[in-house]
């Protein structure tokens, strides 16, 4: 079944640790995105990718980095976690316009708490 997977779902980690949030999709989509979501706030785009070896920063400045070595995989890395990074991180994917769909499909999210 085509889907988007995120691991871990929940992560509590100490300040200064390096973390990688995993995102994989079996939708066959070229475009992938990372959003940051805080309670009562809109989703903010922090990174996106058009395809393999393509990564761009989104509207919200983030200290995280991403990579896109494989079409289906779009991990997000924080080199040194801080309490200000505590948030929910949502991964999404979409097809290119003209491929029949335009909407974004979301994974279940990773809730990160940095202590």
């Amino acid at each position, binding site marked *: 079944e085509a889907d*988007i997977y*995120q691991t871990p*779902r929940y992560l509590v980690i100490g300040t200064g640790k390096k973390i990688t949030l995993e995102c994989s999709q079996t939708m066959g989509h070229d*475009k992938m995105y990372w959003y940051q979501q805080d309670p*009562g*706030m*809109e*989703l903010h*785009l922090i990174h*996106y990718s*058009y395809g393999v070896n393509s990564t*761009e920063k*989104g509207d919200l400045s983030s200290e995280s980095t991403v990579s896109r070595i494989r079409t289906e995989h779009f991990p997000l890395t924080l080199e040194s976690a801080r309490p200000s990074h505590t948030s929910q991180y*949502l991964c*999404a994917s*979409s097809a*290119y*316009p003209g491929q029949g769909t*335009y*909407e*974004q*499909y*979301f*994974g*279940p*999210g990773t*809730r990160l708490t940095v202590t």
Partner: protein
Amino acid sequence: AQSVTQPDIHITVSEGASLELRCNYSYGATPYLFWYVQSPGQGLQLLLKYFSGDTLVQGIKGFEAEFKRSQSSFNLRKPSVHWSDAAEYFCAVGGQGQAGTALIFGKGTTLSVSS
């Protein structure tokens, strides 16, 4: 500036009653409009979308939305709410632009259903 406004932060509706969630957008080009629903601890699920054509669109779970260009609105409706509809609802707008399929989200409306 491109933006989405959801005027109602929190709405409580009795089970079986009708529902309307408001969404107003500001977008320079022809908008593509979406409604997503998010249950606690979950990612976003697409309810419905508008690209073109009939301005009244049907979605999943008995939801519908009407695009009114003159009012820059895309309100979500359901004739009879079920307790399982309690969740957070996000309106989003996108279009053909530099980022292609980048979406702008509202801050969301939390729906509570009373028995």
